[in-house]
């Protein structure tokens, strides 16, 4: 069997363009496309699981010219994650909106998947643009004041980010005349030292805006608060995860230097501490979850930044943290639609989500923190470990407050929401419990 990862990008894009022509069937088309994507992502993942990495070139051009997709185990897993959750989330929320929403949703998913799969930095930029534009519109879709405010903030920062990304790419291209990350990686040493660093800084800043790292994340609280809970859920498992992965990929493939890792570590630690502390006294649930997301992104970035020495442990940690955060935070955002956690489904979703983020075994979050610790301790980063612990305690503080505050019998969620929530959150349990997780964790994720 031959796998074409490009289909994962092409199908939603095509579906998105079809939807305006068949407005009535918008939901069905989008759901179908996403179902296909989900199935295909599973298939691709299992293929990669047994065969290894895939490179695919589009339109017959060889690198460094054409569209180039490079899929390894981690990116396949992320593509699977994004498409799977996108499908579940869409089933839950899609019916509430008109065809435009479906279209934008598909675009966002296509973009996020593209960011994850692509092996070409210019394509990455394009996918970023697609994702970002779709996200602005999705956030603004709620049409109230806060939504528009969030969307505008996101848009302003996103535009700046685009410019920076583009500048970074231009700098690299001006020196190396190539856009393929592997080509760039092979010839990076021939770059002018200063331009090399400048381009890295530009790319980090640009992508960092999407990846919610401090201090580039000014849009995050407003956008999450303004967006409807479904969209907030989408933002937390889609674009942000794709973006943090993009940072990791650029850092690990193109700029695998001590200094870059160091910068990523510092930025990650600062993001973690600031995010968690900012969440501590937050009263608004969505805002609190948004700040918490910032903290978690910092944690994931720390995990990636530790990959320079302990690539195995660091990547397993990042993998589990991404899974845990995506599943827990998306379901918590869905839950935030209800004023309190009435009923068993809502209650246990909330509790499991919170426990997973705090890092209680046997949930996925625990394994993330465990491997992160193993990686950190090898480099004797005591301060980092302390700060991670401190952040964890702060996390426990505000999540306990959240759990207490949202205790109640009221539940305004319909069945689709509940099912989506439970299915999403069950991933953190399943991946924590099932042996496959350990198996996966014991395999090399990067490259092989």
């Amino acid at each position, binding site marked *: 069997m031959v796998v074409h990862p490009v289909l994962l990008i092409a199908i939603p894009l095509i579906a998105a363009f079809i939807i305006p022509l068949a407005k009535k069937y918008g939901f069905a088309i989008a759901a179908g496309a996403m179902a296909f994507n989900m199935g295909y992502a599973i298939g691709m993942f299992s293929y990669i699981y047994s065969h290894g990495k895939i490179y695919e070139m589009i339109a017959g051009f060889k690198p460094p010219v054409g569209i180039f997709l490079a899929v390894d185990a981690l990116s396949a897993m992320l593509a699977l994650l994004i498409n799977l959750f996108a499908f579940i989330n869409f089933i839950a929320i899609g019916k509430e909106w008109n065809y435009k929403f479906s279209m934008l949703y598909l675009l966002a998913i296509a973009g996020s998947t593209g960011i994850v799969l692509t092996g070409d930095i210019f394509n990455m930029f394009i996918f970023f643009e697609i994702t970002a534009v779709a996200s602005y519109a999705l956030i603004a879709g709620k049409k109230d004041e806060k939504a528009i405010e969030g969307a505008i903030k996101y848009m302003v920062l996103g535009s700046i980010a685009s410019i920076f990304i583009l500048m970074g790419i231009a700098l690299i291209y001006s020196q190396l005349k190539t856009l393929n990350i592997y080509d760039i990686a092979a010839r990076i040493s021939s770059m002018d030292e200063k331009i090399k660093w400048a381009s890295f800084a530009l790319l980090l800043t640009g992508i960092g805006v999407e990846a919610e790292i401090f201090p*580039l994340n000014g849009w995050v609280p407003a956008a999450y608060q303004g967006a409807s809970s479904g969209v907030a859920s989408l933002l937390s498992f889609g674009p942000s995860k794709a973006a943090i992965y993009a940072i990791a990929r650029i850092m690990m493939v193109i700029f695998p230097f001590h200094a870059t890792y160091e910068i990523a570590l510092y930025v990650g630690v600062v993001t973690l501490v600031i995010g968690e502390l900012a969440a501590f006294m*937050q009263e608004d649930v969505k805002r609190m979850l948004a700040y918490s997301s910032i903290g978690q992104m910092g944690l994931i970035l720390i995990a990636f930044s530790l990959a320079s020495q302990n690539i195995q442990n660091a990547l397993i940690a990042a993998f589990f943290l991404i899974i845990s955060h995506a599943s827990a935070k998306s379901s918590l955002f869905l839950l935030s639609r209800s004023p309190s956690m009435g009923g068993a489904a809502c209650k246990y979703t909330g509790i499991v989500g919170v426990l997973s983020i705090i890092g*209680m*075994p*046997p949930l996925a979050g625990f394994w993330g923190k465990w491997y992160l610790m193993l990686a950190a301790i090898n480099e004797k980063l005591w301060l980092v470990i302390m700060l991670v*612990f401190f952040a964890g305690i702060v996390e426990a503080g505000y999540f306990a407050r959240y759990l207490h505050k949202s205790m109640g019998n009221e539940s305004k969620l319909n069945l689709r929401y509940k099912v989506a929530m439970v299915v999403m959150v069950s991933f953190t349990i399943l991946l924590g419990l099932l042996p496959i997780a*350990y198996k996966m964790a014991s395999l090399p994720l990067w490259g092989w």
Partner: protein
Amino acid sequence: MLDIIFAELIIAAIITFFVGKKIASIIAGFISILPLFALIDWANNFGFKTISFGIERQMNISVAGITLHLGITPLSWFFALMILPLFPLIMLYSYSFFKENDGFYPFMLFAFASTFGILLSKDMLSLFLFWEIMSWSSFLLVYRSRDKEAIISYLIFSVFSAFAILFGLMILWHENFSLLLSDIGRINGIYGFIAIASLIIGFSVKSVLMPLHAWAPFVYSKSDEPFVAFLSGGLSKLGYYGMFLFLFTLNGVKILQNYTPNVAWNYLLAVVGSLSAFVATMLAIMQDDLRKLLAYSSIGQLGYIAIGFGIGTPLAITGALFQAFNHAFFKAVLFLAAGAVAYRTGKWKISELGGLAYRMPLTFLAALFAIFALAAIPITSGFAAKWLLYEAAIQQKYVFIAPLMLIAGVGAFLYSFRILYGVFLGENRYPDVKEAPKSMIAAMFILMLPLIIFVVFPGYMLDLMKPALSNSGIESIAHTKFAIETSLAKYNSMAVLITLIAAMVPAFIIYKARKHRITSFEDNYLAGEPYEFHNPSMHAAHNFYKPLKGVVLPYFEPGATYYFEKIYKGIGILSNGIRRIYTGFVQDYAIYVVIFLLAVMGWLIWM
């Protein structure tokens, strides 16, 4: 066999999500007896002749690269003896305690399974895994209380404890490159010191040592009684299990000593323990809420165990283990009795209760006996335990610890009497209350049995803990069945008992020589005024130790809770400050982006 036991516990936990209250309590009760069979079986390995069920001593559960090493050690066997029997009885108690099954049983079973797991784990990963499962399952039980302070403080302190333990384990792992606990011995130097210190701090959260006890009064006073009985009786011992394990079995004391030969760190632990015992006792005296009183009493009584570990001589450790065993049972009985009282009357405030001794005589008897053990009345096992600790302190000439311990022992009389008088004696406020349901009574009385067995035979207890001590290289002290002998003195419980019985003879003659008649309660001298109770503040149990309160409380007022609240608020202020970064103006954010870019660029280019 062992994996089957675990599997059954987990399956039972899942089943109890879906069945009714009575069935759930029966399932939980019967399933949780299984580990007791294992305990009986394992006793064969430690020099006791019992029945064998063919349950293995060691087991490795290997799952895709990660191996959990499980197995019984003499130490964990002894701790299992005191923790595990509580569980089926608490389930028996809960048979009539709860109105419906709303998530108590599954998490209780998770907590139980993880407790069993902690005791059996032989490597750091499984220890930590089970510890965390215990943490969250007990958190979910606390969560049922719906009390803000309880939920927040328990989760924060649990996470703190977990991280401190994780930190210690990580260092040990990093230094030894082995997850097995038995390989720890090689560690030395600053890392060993930090690791052991961090582990002790982590464990002392669960064992409610004084500075880290702040969660306990809230949690103990707001959660369901059966759970609190397990929390205070059982789970708090796990902290001391961890301490014993790392300090003595795994030579933590030597690790500490090797790094700083001139500082007696274990003395610090003893000081903390004695302050814990003293301060908590004083605070317990002042409480009006029955559960808060018992909570502070728990903190105080558990402090004694820390003193024992801190002193660290064989005498002291024996006393500490003895005290741990006693505390598991008498505090469980007390919490269950308090629960039974509340079940019938619906009141928690001591000043609103009263006169239940004749209405609930069996509950009263159970509580009375538990209080005898708590207040260390001679011939009860409670006295033997505390006696050993006192002897140990005098033997080591610890002149700071000994007075605090002893005065805390006297203070125990004060709050014990508070319970007896306020709840069971005094004015008769509930003339229509019935005795607690049979299952509750049965649970309390069966829980008392171990205490009764060791009443005049403290020697049996010392025999039981002998394997655990000798496994850690601690010699056990000289004793016969009913007498314990130390280098300082001797305590013969049989002599006390016989003399007490003999001395009862003249008392009994006086008692029987003249007849008496029992008058109604209202026939009470109040300067001729008829006895009427309408005003609760006229009740003598209201504000009982008021004179003491005025003198003592000012010194204890800014307690640990106060400082933790300060820290919490401090973090809140920090948080509010940090939130200022997010000004809400997108212009600012754009400036941040540019500054970040320049900073990163600058860092990379010029560094």
